[in-house]
């Protein structure tokens, strides 16, 4: 007997064709979100707050009600939507430039207020849509169009570790960092997204997942080389794992100060 083990999720539009570059992990992330919406039967009550960046045309792909936020203000809009319609399931899908650069105040304050929304942040260590400029998450030494000699510590400072920052906020119910560099990690990423959505359904607070992703076009690499970079370089600085989970009963591993 033959069973179907994979199909296109119903939460995606029919005959969807992504506008992302070849090999971009955005496609995988959008599919995982759609699969989780299918499995949790949230499609009919979801409101997506899309952001500015490569994720700007998300309403073309996901078959849910959506609203477009100004650059960086996705979580401020999501706050308003959720407070006006607390029965709805509200989530945002943002890039690292949107979440952690221009929108850092909105994002962290949404976490500090413990807003009952979920946020997905795609971290590809650069501004992808505008042509690969230096972003807040750019690794030290990484060459971008605005840092042609590599990110320099004295001039630009350190990259921001978003999942850790969000985990430190008291209103956060779930914060995790996952990667899409291998099939095993893609499956873990789906579990993390599911958990972040589940805490909103239970009304526990802010749910957050940072997804390490590739940008083969702006990194000027082949898609498979880009995944090697995620594994060998990005995952050294951005360690994946669950940083806060109020449902598990134990605190996250990074929360202990080093002098203890």
């Amino acid at each position, binding site marked *: 007997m033959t069973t179907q083990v*994979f199909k296109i999720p119903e939460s995606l539009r029919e005959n969807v064709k*992504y506008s992302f570059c070849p090999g971009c992990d955005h496609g995988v992330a959008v599919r995982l979100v759609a699969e989780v919406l299918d499995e949790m039967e949230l499609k009919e009550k979801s409101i997506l707050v899309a952001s500015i960046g490569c994720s700007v045309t998300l309403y073309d792909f996901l078959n849910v009600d959506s609203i477009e936020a100004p650059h960086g203000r996705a979580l401020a809009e999501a706050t308003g939507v959720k407070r006006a319609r607390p029965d709805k399931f509200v989530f945002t899908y943002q890039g690292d430039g949107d979440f952690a650069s221009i929108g850092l105040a909105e994002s962290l304050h949404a976490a500090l207020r413990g807003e009952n929304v979920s946020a997905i942040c795609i971290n590809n260590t650069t501004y992808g849509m505008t042509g690969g400029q230096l972003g807040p998450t750019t690794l030290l030494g990484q060459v971008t169009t605005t840092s042609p000699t590599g990110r320099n510590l004295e001039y630009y400072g350190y990259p921001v570790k978003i999942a850790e920052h969000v985990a430190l906020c008291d209103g956060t119910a779930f914060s995790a960092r996952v990667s899409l560099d291998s*099939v095993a990690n893609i499956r873990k990423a789906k579990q993390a997204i599911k958990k972040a959505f589940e805490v909103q359904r239970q009304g526990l607070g802010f749910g957050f997942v940072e997804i390490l992703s590739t940008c083969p076009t702006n990194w000027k690499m082949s898609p498979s080389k880009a995944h090697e970079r995620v594994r060998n370089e990005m995952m050294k600085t951005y360690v994946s794992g669950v940083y806060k989970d109020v449902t598990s009963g134990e605190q996250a591993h990074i929360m202990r100060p080093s002098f203890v």
Partner: protein
Amino acid sequence: MSRIVIDSDKCKACYLCINECPKKLIKISDKTNSLGNRVVEFDDPKGECLGCAMCATRCPDLAITEVYKG
């Protein structure tokens, strides 16, 4: 028999699926699609496909639309 279905119009020729397949059943074909990409094809003459769906999980563009196991 396990098999996959490839929508070649969606393939953007990133070739990530080729490395994922444990039986190396996905190959670069001679055909080009409407986007001008050399698309991949599923070549399984001996019926070796496991139906593991790793290629579909990896594919960023949903070009592998269905996987059947059995």
